[in-house]
């Protein structure tokens, strides 16, 4: 069954089986997108559930003009960014002396090194690189980060990224060029 038929079944008949089919088809794509934004795999798993909840609730507004995957990518990007903003607010709240300081300072979401070291299968050099890359990515302006993640974690083409971000292909090219230039700068500077 194609995506359009599944979506109609979900919207018209509240068909949970159809929605399960959509989730099974797109869950790895959603998880990997979220993974690009957050510091730990468990956060990406939680976000993936939130993305599908939002997808379910927004499907009645889905216009079949664009691809369902484009629609899902947009939700995944927005959910991830909102999650990071919320985390940032919370860590700011903690830094002003409210809440339990030590736990939050070491939480994977606010501290990539804590997240990287919590995951098995990485040597010290990989852990260091992973933490540095996550840190550098967090420093990127939002639209450069989105373009970079969609390109690197999803292997989307410039045209596909342009559709998700609703910008021109030329803008995507420029965003990715600047993202890489900045990342290189952040990564090399942090080593010096």
């Amino acid at each position, binding site marked *: 069954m194609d995506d359009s038929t599944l979506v109609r079944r979900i919207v018209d008949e509240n068909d949970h089986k159809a929605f399960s089919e959509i989730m099974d088809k797109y*869950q790895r794509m959603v998880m990997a997108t979220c993974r690009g934004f957050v510091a730990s795999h468990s956060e990406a798993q939680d976000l993936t559930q939130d993305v599908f909840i939002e997808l379910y609730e927004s499907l009645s507004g889905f216009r079949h003009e664009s691809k369902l995957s484009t629609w899902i990518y947009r939700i995944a990007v927005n959910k991830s960014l909102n999650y990071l903003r919320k985390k940032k607010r919370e860590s700011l709240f903690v830094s002003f002396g409210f809440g339990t300081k030590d736990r939050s300072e070491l939480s994977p979401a606010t501290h990539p090194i804590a997240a990287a070291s919590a*995951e098995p299968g990485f040597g010290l050099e990989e852990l260091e690189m992973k933490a540095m890359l996550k840190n550098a990515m967090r420093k990127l302006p939002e639209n450069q980060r989105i373009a970079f993640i969609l390109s690197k974690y999803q292997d989307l083409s410039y045209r596909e990224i342009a559709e998700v971000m609703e910008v021109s292909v030329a803008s995507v090219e420029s965003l990715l060029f600047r993202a890489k230039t900045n990342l290189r700068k952040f990564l090399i500077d942090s080593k010096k």
Partner: protein
Amino acid sequence: MNCKTTQKLMLQYIDGELNELLAGEVKGHISGCSECYQQFVRLSRIQGVIDAEKAECQFDPYLSARVLARLSHRNQPHSVLLSSRRYVLAVAFSVAAVFVGVLLGGFFSKVDINLMQIQSDNSIELLAEEYFPTTNDNFYDIPFNENDNENQ
């Protein structure tokens, strides 16, 4: 090609995004410059980190069931409009309202009973004195019975 230009194009080179001519120049410079070579080795590891993170994202056979369970929980009548935080607030306000209601109810029910007594006894002073005694000292000094008898 100098170090500055080489390093500026490094990530594009690693990602295979340069044309043949530029790629050849970068490659030539890297092979003869230890600083740029080190940077090349270091930045080449980015893709490995990303690939490792992507590899963690395995298919989860229980994900759809978990999401459906959350959805059916959300669709229950009481939780549709109330987010969890609002729900807690709503419960807290309800408890507070009931508590205040009980207090006020107790107060006014007492007043009502007394008002009935007043009507039958025809003595407003009785209530006034009970709640707001004007007489200095002892509550029990007030001669209720005398007044009652006089009015009757």
